[in-house]
C-alpha cells in the first residue's frame, strides 16, 4: 500500500548520481545471487533500470551485462524506461476479470492513447496491468499512484481518468 505514493520524478535520484548505486553494490558485495534484490533497490532509488546504471552495476559487481539485461527483461517488475508522473495500475487478476476489468483497460487505452506497459510521450501517465493486488473483494480494482479504487466500472474509470487528463478537472461525482 505504502509503496509508490508519490510519483513525481523528484522522488528519484538522477541516474548520473552513482553514489546510491555504490552503496547498494557494497551492501550485497560477494553475493552474486542477490541481483534481483539489487534491481529492486535500484528501482526504488532511480525509478527504473537505466542503461548506464546497469553498465555500472555490471562493471562494479562483476556481472555480465547480457545477464543483467536478460534478467531485467524476464521479470515484469523492472522497467527499463522512466515512468510517468501518474502510474495507473489496473488489476487483471481473475476476480477482477470476471467483473469486467477488461472494460477498464479498454477505457484507459482509449483515453490515454497508450497500451499497458507504456508511458505516454509527455511522461504524464504509465499504464500497467497487474495480477491480483490482493483486494479481490473490491474487484475490479484500479490503483492510481498507490490509491485504491474499488468496484470500478468503465464509466467510473472514464471519470477517474478525467481528473488527471483535464488539468484542474475535479471529476465532480454525479452519483
Amino acid at each position: 500500500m505504502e509503496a509508490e505514493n508519490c510519483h513525481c520524478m523528484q522522488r528519484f535520484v538522477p541516474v548520473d548520481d552513482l553514489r546510491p548505486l555504490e552503496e547498494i553494490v557494497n551492501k550485497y558485495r560477494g553475493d552474486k545471487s542477490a541481483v534481483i534484490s539489487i534491481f529492486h533497490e535500484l528501482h526504488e532509488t532511480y525509478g527504473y533500470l537505466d542503461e548506464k546504471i546497469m553498465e555500472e552495476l555490471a562493471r562494479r559487481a562483476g556481472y555480465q551485462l547480457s545477464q543483467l539485461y536478460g534478467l531485467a527483461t524476464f521479470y515484469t517488475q523492472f522497467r527499463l524506461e522512466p515512468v510517468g508522473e501518474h502510474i495507473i495500475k489496473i488489476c487483471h487478476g481473475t476476480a477482477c476479470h470476471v467483473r469486467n476489468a477488461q472494460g477498464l483497460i479498454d477505457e484507459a487505452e482509449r483515453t490515454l492513447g497508450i497500451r499497458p506497459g507504456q508511458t505516454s510521450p509527455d511522461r504524464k501517465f504509465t499504464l500497467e496491468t497487474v495480477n491480483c493486488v490482493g483486494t479481490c473483494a473490491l474487484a475490479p480494482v484500479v490503483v492510481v499512484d498507490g490509491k485504491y479504487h474499488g468496484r470500478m466500472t468503465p464509466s467510473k474509470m472514464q471519470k477517474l481518468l478525467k481528473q488527471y487528463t483535464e488539468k484542474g478537472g475535479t471529476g465532480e461525482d454525479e452519483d
Partner: protein
Amino acid sequence: MRIDSPAALERYCEEVKEKKAKYPYRVSVCGGTGCQAFNCLEVYEALVESIKENDLEEEVELKLTGCHGFCEMGPLMYFQPMGTFYAKVDPKDVNDIVVATILQEGEVEKYLYRDPVSGEKIHHREEIPFYKKQVRLLLGINHLIRPQVIDDYLALDGYKALAKVLFEMTPEEVIEAVERAGLRGRGGAGFPTARKWRICREAPSPDGIKYIICNADEGDPGAYMDRSLLEGNPHAVIEGMAIGAYAIGACEGYVYVRHEYPLALRNLLVALDQAREMNLLGKDIMGSGFDFDIKVAVGGGAFVCGEETALIASIEGKRGMPRPRPPYPAVKGLWGRPTNINNVETWENVPLIIRMGPEKFAEIGTENSKGTKIFSLVGKINNTGLVEVPMGITLREIIYDIGGGIPGNKAFKAVQTGGPSGGCIPAEHLDIQVDFESLQGIGSMMGSGGMIVMDENTCMVDIAKYFMKFLCEESCGKCVPCRVGTKRMLEILTKICDGEGTPEDLEALEVLAADIKAASLCALGGTAPNPVLTTLRYFRHEYEEHIYNKKCPAGVCPALITIKIDPEKCNGCGACAKVCPVNAISGEKKQPHVVDPELCIRCKVCMDRCRQEAIYAE
C-alpha cells in the same frame, strides 16, 4: 530474552498469558492488505484515540492484526469476549462504537453485519453464516495476533511444537507424524509432504548441506491465501520450517516472497529478527544443539517462479526458467544440494499437526485429503473473502452456505478452481467433495486455493481466453510447446471471441491442448490447456454459439454483442449519451434513447451509467 530450554519457553509463555489475562476486553481490527485498501488504519488510529479518551487502556487489549478472512466487509472490528462484530466501519464512528459496545455493553446497530440472504442483522461473529461452516484452524487465530509481536504468538503456545520436536522426537518420528496426519502439499499438486521430506532427508549431499524453501510466490491471479497467512501469522511459518528443517536435516531455509506483497515481507522480516533474538532460530535453538536459520528472497514478478526449479533459479539470481526434472530438487536443488520446497500453508500446518497430534488432525477431512484448506472465494459471489474449510466439504456448501450465493439473483454458471492450471466446474458438479482426487477427477484441481465464482454473465470462451492470455504472457519461453503453443491457442480463442471461429478451430484447440500437455517442460505448459479443456468439456455449446451463430450468450465478447436500450425502462435522462465515447446514443430528453449499432464500439461505458438498468447487451 533468550530461551535456552523448553522449560524456559514454557515459563515465558505462561508469563505472557498472565499479562494478557489482565484485560477484560479485546478489540481486534483487521490490518491486512485488503482492509488497508478500505482505510482500516484510520479506524485503528481512531480506536487507539478513543480507548485513551475513555480511559480504557487498562481494560482493553488492542490488536491490529492480519486478515480475518471477511475482506469484503472491511474495515472490521471484532470485540471480545462479547463476540460483537462490526463491518465496513467508518473511522469517525469508532468512538461511538467503543462507547456503545464496551461502556454501555450494547452495540451499534448500523455497523452490524447484515446477512445478504435473510436480510437480518447478526450480532455475533460466530453466527455469521460466512464464519459458521468454516473450520478455521489456521486463519482462526489471526485476529489474536499482531504479526509484529512475537508475544502474541507465544501466548498461543507458539514454538512449543518446535520445542517438543527438538527435545522429544527424532527426525524420523517427525516425518512419521506428518505422514500419519496425512498432510499433502497445499501449493498445487497435493504431493504427500512426508514422502517429499523423506526423499530429501535420504538424498546425499556433497557437503552435507541441505536446504528447505517456503514457496510464498502465490502467483495465482485472484488468490491471496498465502499472503494472508504470511502477513498475519509469520511465526507459524517460521516454526513450521524449523520443524521441517530438523526432520530433513537442513541447516538453512529460504522464504521466496513475491515483491507484490510488501506487508507480508515486512512482517516476516520482523518476525525473523524476533525469533533469532529469542533463540528460536539460529544457532543452538533453545539449547538443543540444532542450528537453523532462514533467509528471505524476493521475486521479480513471474508466475513461473512458483515452479520449483524456476524458483530455485530465481533464488540463485537467474532468469526463472525451469529445468527438466529428474533430477528432482529433493535430490539436486538449490546450489546443487538436496532441497525441499513447500507452500506457505503446508508449512503452517506442520506446527498444528505436532500440537494437535497427527491422529486428531487426520480426523478432519476425507480418506485421502486431511485437514483444512483455505480458499480465496471471489468473483460473482456475495461473501468475498478467505474461507478455511475442512477437506470433503462440497462446493455447494462453500458457495451457497459460506459464500451466500450469487449476487443480484443471477444464475450460477461455474466455479473455477486451481488457478490458471485448473478448470471450470459447472453446476452439475456442485455437490462434489472438495478434495485432491475429486477435483482432479472432473478435470480441475485443488491448486493453491483460488476459487472464482462465475454467473450467467460470464462467458466461458472469454474465461478460457483470459487464462490462456495470462499463461502465454507468463510462459518463460524456454520450451517450444508452451512458448509457441499457448500463443497459437490464444490466437484461436481470440478468433472465436471475435466471431471469426470455424469448426476446425475446436479440433485444433484439442490437438494443441493434448500435445502441449504431453510435451511441455514444466507444469506451467503441462497444465496450461486445462481451462480450455474443461470449458470445452462442460460448456462446448458456448463455443458453438460463438462459432456457428456468432453469438456470445453471456453478452461479453464485444464483437458478438449488440448494445440495446429497453424503451420500456429508459426514462430519457440522457446520462448514457453523455458518456458514450463515440456519440452512438441519441434521443430526445425524457424520451427513450437508442443506440446506433453502426457507431457503437460496445465499450459498455453507458451501461453502468444507466440508473434504470435499461441498457443491455445481447
